């Protein structure tokens, strides 16, 4: 089925499959073509024009949309392509208000990286500004500052294609293009499910996450990958921590089984982890009061009491309720324990309630 193809990119022969784009083939081969509107988790767009490459000597094609073909000769950058990329970056810089000092994405911004890479300074042709929507308070999950928006459309597709909600779309036309959440109005009053995918896919600071435990400069944060504890799907989460190890924000790990996606719980529900009131040991009730206990003590106590109750009143006097926060395997073990250990079919799961 898969037809393999060979093409030349920057003098190197690389191979790929028919149906792949030039960008996919090049990136698989470890070659770098800059992009801005492209994201592997959403459909092809081809709007920012940053990834223009030279195909077969003359034609400029967007690597993110152009199908790779057998025998193709691709040049990923030359003087003309670099000048086109610089012009596009300058245009974007002139169009928005990118004040990095005050931007949540400073240091973690694909647009900023590209401007550094191509040595962009003040745009040669400033554009008298037209301020777009800023709304950093209405939503519990999202901060929106469209003055930093490059209109790449990743958020629109993140919501429409990944979360399948379609909260975002573009409205207006031409240089009046802007985002709309539902029919307009604050995003906090929209049908947003707070999954945060749009903010995770935003290449700039136009859409960012509300802080859960405070903020820190992005260059002082460290990424630690973990597994979400909320359900059996087992989404991988990249937790970003500050220099003191405090958990600041969470992104879906793009390589995890969740393909980078998170729900509202995984995205924002981690403030309990380092909360001072978090229960850190088992608690056993003594004299009417819950007191800290060791695991051995707590398990012994529970086993003893369950045995007593079973002996006195029979196994059907005991019921077990399992949690969606544990894995399928653990849920299996739990029902096995209830059926064979305790001897009752009184077992249920919170997801059924």
């Amino acid at each position, binding site marked *: 089925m898969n037809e393999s193809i060979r093409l030349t990119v920057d003098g190197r022969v690389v191979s790929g499959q028919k149906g792949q784009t030039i960008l996919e083939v090049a990136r698989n081969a470890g070659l770098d073509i800059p992009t801005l509107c492209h994201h592997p988790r959403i459909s092809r767009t081809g709007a920012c024009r940053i990834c223009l490459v030279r195909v077969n000597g003359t034609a400029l094609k967007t690597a993110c949309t152009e199908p790779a073909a057998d025998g193709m000769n691709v040049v990923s950058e030359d003087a003309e392509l670099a000048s086109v990329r610089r012009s596009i970056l300058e245009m974007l810089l002139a169009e928005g208000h990118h004040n990095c000092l005050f931007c949540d994405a400073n240091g973690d911004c694909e647009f900023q990286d590209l401007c550094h890479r191509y040595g962009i300074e003040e745009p040669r042709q400033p554009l008298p500004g037209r301020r777009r929507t800023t709304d950093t308070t209405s939503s519990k999950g999202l901060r929106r500052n469209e003055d930093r928006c490059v*209109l790449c459309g990743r958020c629109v597709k993140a919501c429409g294609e990944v979360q399948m909600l379609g909260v975002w779309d573009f409205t207006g036309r031409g240089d009046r293009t802007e985002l709309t959440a539902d029919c307009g109005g604050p995003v906090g009053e929209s049908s947003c499910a707070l999954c945060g995918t749009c903010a995770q896919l935003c290449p700039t600071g136009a859409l960012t996450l509300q802080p859960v435990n405070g903020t820190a400069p992005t260059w002082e944060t460290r990424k630690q990958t973990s597994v979400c504890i909320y359900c059996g799907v087992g989404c991988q989460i990249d937790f970003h921590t500050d220099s003191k190890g405090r958990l600041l924000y969470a992104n879906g790990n793009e390589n995890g089984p969740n393909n980078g996606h998170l729900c509202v719980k995984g995205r924002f529900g981690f403030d309990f982890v380092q909360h001072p009131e978090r229960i850190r040991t088992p608690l056993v009730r003594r004299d009417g009061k819950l007191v800290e206990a060791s695991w051995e003590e707590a398990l012994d106590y529970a086993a003893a009491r369950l045995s007593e109750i079973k002996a006195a009143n029979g196994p059907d006097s005991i019921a077990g309720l399992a949690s969606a926060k544990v894995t399928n395997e653990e849920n299996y073990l739990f029902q096995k324990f209830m059926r064979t250990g305790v001897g009752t079919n009184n077992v249920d799961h919170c997801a059924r309630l």
Partner: protein
Amino acid sequence: MLTTADIRKVVESYGTAREHLMLVLRDLQAMSGDNHLSTEVLKGVAQEMRLPESIVAGFVGFYSMFSVRPRARHVIRVCKSGPCHVVGASTIFRILSERFGLQPGTATPDGEFFLEACECLGVCSVAPAMMVDYDLHGNLTEERLVSILDGYRGKAASTGEQCGEETAGKAIVVNAPYPRRLLARVGHIDPTSIDSGIAAGNYSALKTVLSGMTPDQVVALVKESGLRGRGGAGFPAGVKWSFVDRKAPRRFVVCNADEGEPGTFKDRVLMEEDPHSVIEGMAICGFAIGATLGYIYVRGEYRRSIVRLEEAIRQARQRGWLGDRIQGTDFSFDLLIKEGGGAYVCGEETSLINSMEGRRGYPRFKPPFPGVAGFKNLPSNVNNVETFANVPIIVQHGAREYRSIGTANSFGPKLYCMAGHLRNPGLIEAPMGTTLVQLIETCGGLKEGSSFQFAQIGGSAGAIVGPADLELGMDFDQPLKKGLTLGSGSILVCDQSVCIVDFLRNVLSFFRHESCGQCVPCRVGTRQLYQLMDRIASGSGTPEDVEAMTTTAQIMKKASFCALGQSPIVPLQTALARFRDKLLDHCNPAHPCPVCSTGRGASKPLTAH
């Protein structure tokens, strides 16, 4: 106030599929009483059509005929595109301001009129023109303007049964010394009667095709004829037909009737005066590519074209020229009409397809081309109205005779739309390659007192040519050799009263207004170009600004997603090659330009043609 029941009723009348969004919203806007779509209505439509609200809001925001703010009972759309601009559109705006207190984007206090500046309405032979509701009014003078508007007071908005003055039939230049094939029936038949058309030859070509030709023979015939697309790009139509994927379960024929290129009105004349020629051409194409359904995407402003086509389709079905088993053969083919909502970019075939599907009119990247994945991702062959109208002529007269008309590689007759400072502006059918000067002379030359300064050929995206180019043969290839393009075949002739800088500012404001905004170079570039030209026109520009415009337009040419962003370099570069000194003169504040300095271009006295 529209109720949920109203919204439900309208949605039910078309269906809940997304492709009906345009007509659902159009009807609801007309029902609102003040020509707008409230947030509640948008939410209601989203709910009834089971679409995310953002999609409905984004759709409405894209098309300029919709408004989310209340307007007034009647919407006045005054054309500000080149052909109207050079004959005094700014005077119309001045009169509306003085006599009615109307500025673009405002309403009269009594809620009667709302004024909008719009782009070309396709009645350039009677410029300056305006549209009130769906009614067109041309040859405007101050007295006429006032009396026309007074006639609307207190009346309900028309929704298209009466479409204002008859313009298309009168748009043809009489006494042109060329044989008429495309326009043979125009003016001689009753376009609302299929019998009248059939008596004059409509459907005889389809009859020939159905009585013995194979689809491959039809494709071969069109290839052999050398017919090239009349929308502007000049791609060989037969080759395009042969690219249509035959393996897919269904295919579509799509007619591009989104005639938005300023100065172009040829398709309107064909649709309004000889609608069956378009239907016949599409049916032949359907037979050739194995399609059973076709769509005509007509721009929303062309109300009369839509009404005439609807009636023509109805009559054609009745007489068995459309529908199941046409004329008792095995071939079935039917047509439906789609409407535009005011967006020039939808003339780009992939934008048009997106618009047909109820989406924002963003162009799609190619490949895949529409012949492989078009409307609803099925193979779709898109041709222009005039291209389809050529097909019956080719079938009737044969490829050889067709190739005897015109010039090398540009065969057949061509419709030229003549506008500007001409004695008799209008539509001319002439062989491909007819020279500019011949076309101008056919219009009786320039108006009295006018002398030729320059012309823009091919619409706003077209080149500026000077007196030295008058011998240029107007076909696909001869202009190309000089870095010019034929485009849609419109020719806007400008006399000495027009300032090239003001003219270019007008052209660039058009691109800025019509850029879809999807890709960066076009979205930002069109705005930069307009601002630079505006600065030069207002006397505060510098020679560096002139160079900066060229640089920007060149980047746009290289990097833009579709032809819209790749186009501004054409008028700019051709104008600079001929009028660089005039641009530089404007950069000298000691010599303010009398035309540009008024801010809105020439304020000319209006004279009836």
